[in-house]
């Protein structure tokens, strides 16, 4: 199933289409249907922008719906990426920002897999250590971190520096 996207006034949106009301043609937000690609749904409000910042998507058609009404979440964000399945590292990045969101892989217009994003236990090459004296910032060594939650924290495997959620999000490479 593709995510339900609603207008900000609560009315339904037909993805890629138009909605008619009487004789008046309402202007609606157009979201191109995804035939093949990735839909990241149930993102906390305000997180779509951060995710778009950390993913390199310049070669893809991307649509972000923000502050969309949601029965479960109140407001949510949704991202549609045409023609791309996220790599493991990209999924780690998305999970660090959007834990609890749903990642849907769409193939030939159908939802093939649906994954609820959880924090990874460990990330490698995804985050930059905030400690400038860390070996991972001095030599060609990819940052490695153990991740714990409640609250979200990343501990550098090398220098043992701890990073809070803000540091993690700003340190995503």
């Amino acid at each position, binding site marked *: 199933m593709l995510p339900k996207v609603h207008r900000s006034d609560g009315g339904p949106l037909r993805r890629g289409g138009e909605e008619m009301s009487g004789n008046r043609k309402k202007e609606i937000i157009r979201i191109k249907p995804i035939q093949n690609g990735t839909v990241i749904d149930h993102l906390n409000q305000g997180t779509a922008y951060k995710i778009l910042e950390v993913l390199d998507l310049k070669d893809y058609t991307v649509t972000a719906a923000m502050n969309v009404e949601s029965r479960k979440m109140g407001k949510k964000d949704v991202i549609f990426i045409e023609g791309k399945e996220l790599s493991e590292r990209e999924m780690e990045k998305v999970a660090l920002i959007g834990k609890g969101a749903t990642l849907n892989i769409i193939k030939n217009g159908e939802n093939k897999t649906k994954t609820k994003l959880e924090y990874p236990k460990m990330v490698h090459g995804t985050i930059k250590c905030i400690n400038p*004296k*860390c*070996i991972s910032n*001095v030599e*060609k060594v990819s940052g490695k971190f153990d991740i714990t939650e409640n609250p979200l924290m990343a501990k550098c*495997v*090398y*220098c*043992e520096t701890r990073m809070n959620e803000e540091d993690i999000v700003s340190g995503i490479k």
Partner: protein
Amino acid sequence: MNKKTQTDSEKFPKDVLSINDFSRAQIEFVIAEAAKMDKMPRDKKQKILKGKVIASLFFEPSTRTRLSFETAIQNLGGKVIGFADADVSSYKKGESLTDTIHTVENYADLIVMRHYIEGAARRAAEVSKKPVINAGDGANQHPTQTFLDLYTIKKECGKIDGISIAMAGDLKYGRTVHSLMYALAKFNNVQVYLISPASLKMPEYIIDDTKGKLKITETSKLDKYLDKVDVLYSTRIQKERFPDEVEYEKVRNSYIITPKVLGKGRKDLKLMHPLPRVNEITTKVDDMPQAIYFKQAANGVPVREALLKILAGVKK
């Protein structure tokens, strides 16, 4: 050696990088091995590393750590190669740590390394085919210091469980007291008094990590709880760890231990210090029975002998 310790020793880490990598049983195993080394006749010790070459790579200056490691290697009959200053190595020419380790691992059976870059030891261990002992990596870890501190407490107080210890001075930047907190948290019923000025308090995350396991009391008054403690662990207020000199000057004289201050503690109190000291313990204290910091430094030899012996038998 009891069965539990023996089993744990079999799973002993292949490198000594951080005290946080060790269980209580493994720490007790090292302490027991160090006690054996303390009593072992020299001719018997000489066989332990016979025919082995140990690399001693000191990218940063050190007196006690380097000399006690090199003494331990000699005592165990091993040969030492290496350098005491990065200026005489190819590191100065821009060689990466990884390349240095890949070179040295072909010459030596075990690598002892001090480096000013944090995390350098774990990186070295990651790429090395030979065991690595971290002899200090910047402000991060110095596990052999923590092992010798624990060995000293056990030797002088007869126990670690149930001790009462005050840590005084620079608790914010001092890596020895940070590691000691985590190590003591593996033992039972330990009371810790944290004595420091507000600007040098123990980091909150360390208190959070250990408060369920240690009884912690914080104060800024050096003599307030002295009559309650078995051990007073004094630390140097380290200039190099301060972001600016003004802050350093402001607090450097906060906690000077004199015979008068020590007189407020119990007669059997043990005064420890990781050394070097600057002015935080006056030299008049040196001859008092409470002063055990030179004995503590001497304990670095059997503790490092024990670690070298254990790791020399490890296959990576």
